């Protein structure tokens, strides 16, 4: 059924977009708006700007202290000495704008959102998606959430879905209890940075036993040049509950760099299930350095479904700490790296309780000199008897210039475990291309089809509309890719 629906949706999409094949390699989200902001900080990171952010948000004293301590940690911590060090060391932290407040407040009605910002989200299809298939939306523009809504029935069931700043005001006790407990400020240089200057992001709290059947979505848009976006997301699923959270992001194309550095913490209490889906499609001048971590208690299940298409350099390794018996973790990720892009992505699974299970599936494609890396860790503690882990990495190279590396680490301190690891690197097969072309598909169409097939284990986990969009993006990326 899904197959048929997908076909029909694709057909309709294609019919609506006859120019699709002529668009070429353009990044269609690269447009920008005039800046008309309530507040824009100066360039650079200072103690003063951290204090300013906190005071503009009327934050409690403990949060200001938390920020300032994190700033000290950031300043003291050296840059990572692994990953793409060259690109990392190119980041000019003093050239970034750390806080931009685009509008007076977060609105519940799109008509109240400033026109130019609303038009941007219209172009990105957010209000339309919300009407069609979402249970709640937050839309963040620069540093602040400009629009927020949740379906009434969910609100009545006690589900809290707010932007993080509102959550701190309205549910300070819950935020204080969990904030920074999964990813402390000192975890790494970029979590420290986020902890110092965070703004926006989502807060989700799902009451015991409540299943949110329709996805909640957050959309993050950077507009200004040299912008730094540091949203902070915290999701708490009480025992036996379920939530699917989706995030997407884009930015205008500039010749100079922007920085996106989020911290995302997930807590799945006993028997709870959290699925967190990301379609990252930043423009190619954005550094995307994100820390994502989840804790899964007994019988809980956490899934990271992580798609990385855009950005200049992404370093992101969603992790799951399986701390209760029978907890299950999955990371399913795809990465696509074109010219001047490096996707350094992966996963971490930490088995800290008996009979915990985990699956990592990573698929990457590099073309036109692009680079992908899989960096992963599976750690099993001595008491985690009967645990199982399976890791599968497939890389597809489109040409000789492109590169793919795998850095899998296994730290297994328990004998009674089952660990599987499999990695492949392949090239788009001449025979596959010839076969598809002999049936009338152009080289670009044939390539896109092979790649969509390669990513299919990922796309089939996405809601239909996202799967269609992803396939369309790949088709765009593939125009003129082999030649």
């Amino acid at each position, binding site marked *: 059924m899904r*197959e*048929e629906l997908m*076909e*029909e949706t694709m*057909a309709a999409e*294609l*019919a609506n977009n006859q120019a699709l094949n002529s668009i070429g390699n353009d990044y269609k989200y690269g447009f920008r708006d005039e800046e008309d902001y309530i507040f824009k900080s100066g360039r650079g990171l200072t103690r003063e700007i951290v204090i300013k952010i906190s005071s503009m948000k009327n934050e409690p004293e403990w949060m200001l202290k938390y920020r300032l301590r994190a700033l000290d940690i950031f300043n003291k911590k050296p840059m990572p000495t692994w990953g793409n060090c060259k690109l990392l060391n190119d980041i000019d932290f003093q050239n970034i704008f750390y806080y931009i407040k685009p509008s007076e407040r977060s609105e519940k009605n799109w008509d109240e959102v400033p026109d130019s910002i609303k038009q941007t989200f219209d172009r990105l299809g957010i209000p339309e998606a919300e009407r069609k298939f979402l249970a709640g939306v937050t839309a963040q523009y620069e540093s602040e959430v400009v629009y927020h809504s949740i379906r009434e029935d969910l609100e009545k069931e006690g589900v809290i879905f707010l932007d993080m700043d509102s959550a701190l005001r309205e549910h300070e006790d819950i935020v204080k209890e969990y904030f920074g407990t999964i990813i402390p400020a000192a975890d790494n240089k970029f979590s420290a940075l986020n902890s110092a200057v965070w703004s926006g992001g989502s807060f989700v709290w799902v009451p015991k036993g409540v299943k949110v059947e329709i996805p909640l979505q957050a959309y993050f848009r950077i507009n200004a040049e040299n912008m730094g976006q540091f949203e902070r997301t915290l999701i708490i699923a009480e025992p036996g509950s379920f939530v699917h959270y989706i995030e997407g992001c884009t930015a205008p194309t500039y010749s100079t760099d922007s920085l996106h550095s989020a911290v995302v913490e997930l807590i799945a209490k006993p028997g709870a299930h959290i699925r967190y889906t990301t379609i990252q499609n930043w423009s190619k001048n954005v550094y995307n350095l994100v820390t994502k971590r989840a804790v899964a208690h007994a019988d809980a299940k956490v899934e990271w479904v992580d798609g990385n298409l855009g950005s200049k350099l992404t370093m992101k390794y969603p992790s799951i700490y399986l701390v209760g018996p029978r907890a299950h973790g999955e990371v399913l990720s795809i990465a696509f790296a074109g010219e001047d892009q490096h996707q350094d992505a992966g996963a971490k699974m930490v088995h800290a309780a008996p009979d915990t299970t985990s699956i990592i599936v990573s698929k990457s494609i590099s073309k036109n000199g692009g680079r992908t890396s899989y960096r992963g860790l599976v750690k099993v503690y001595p008491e985690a008897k009967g645990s199982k882990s399976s890791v599968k990495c497939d890389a597809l190279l489109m040409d000789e210039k492109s590169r793919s590396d795998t850095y899998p680490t296994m730290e297994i301190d328990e004998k009674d475990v089952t660990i599987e690891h499999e990695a492949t690197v392949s090239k788009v*097969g*001449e*025979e*596959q291309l*010839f*076969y*598809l*072309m*002999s*049936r*009338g*598909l*152009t*080289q670009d*169409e*044939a390539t896109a*089809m*092979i790649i*969509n*097939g*390669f*990513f*299919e*284990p990922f796309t089939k986990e996405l809601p239909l509309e996202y799967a269609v969009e992803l396939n369309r993006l790949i088709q765009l990326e593939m125009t003129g890719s082999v030649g």
Partner: protein
Amino acid sequence: MTAKEPLLSVQDLHVQVEDKEILKGVNLNIFPGEIHAIMGRNGSGKSTLSYTLMGHPRYHVTSGRVLFKGQDILEMPPDERARMGLALAFQYPVAIPGVSVSNFVRASVNAVRGKDVPVKEFRQELKAEMKKLGVANEFLSRYINDGFSGGEKKRLEILQLALLKPALAVLDETDSGLDIDALKTVSEGINNLASPETAILLITHYQRILNYVEPQFVHVFQDGRIVKSGDSELSQELENRGYDWVTQELTSSGV
């Protein structure tokens, strides 16, 4: 194009693969709606001919011409040839994981027909052809040739040709590796395909498929060229006397 012009005209075709000459001067004319069979031993270059006709990038034409519908097609990529009405059923169709049969077949039909066939209309047409070939519905959601048996692969090839309705269908050893039931079904598919609008070039190693599909012309292929041509009786003679008979005949006549 008038009826007198051949649909396909292969003229003194020489082809190299990795610097080795495989085709050494092939001449062949096929008129609209005709059924031709090319028979020959393994390694005689039969499959090279089919790959060259379809435009495989590894097959280099060193001299000669191939005219299809009066146009020289040798510079065209395979997809353009397909859209002109040429189709090849592969001897060893490749698997493409993650791409479903239904998605692919629809994309292919749209590309070759040059217009989007509405989903419902397409499904009806597809189901009708599937029924003829005894193909189950679940076929559609499977990935192209992925984990298919030999017989399933050949059925999928014939199914696609039936939907594409090419002016010329080249069938490369479509009969190989089939049990007798599958051979009958596939042959029936080929006979359904043959029409005044669709000519067939059947490339085969064995005579047995010619018990089910009757060609008007039979060519014997040997060492990179056609060495003998005749009507359907030639295939029977080959079956009775073997390929050595042709070889001996050629040697004694001094060719």
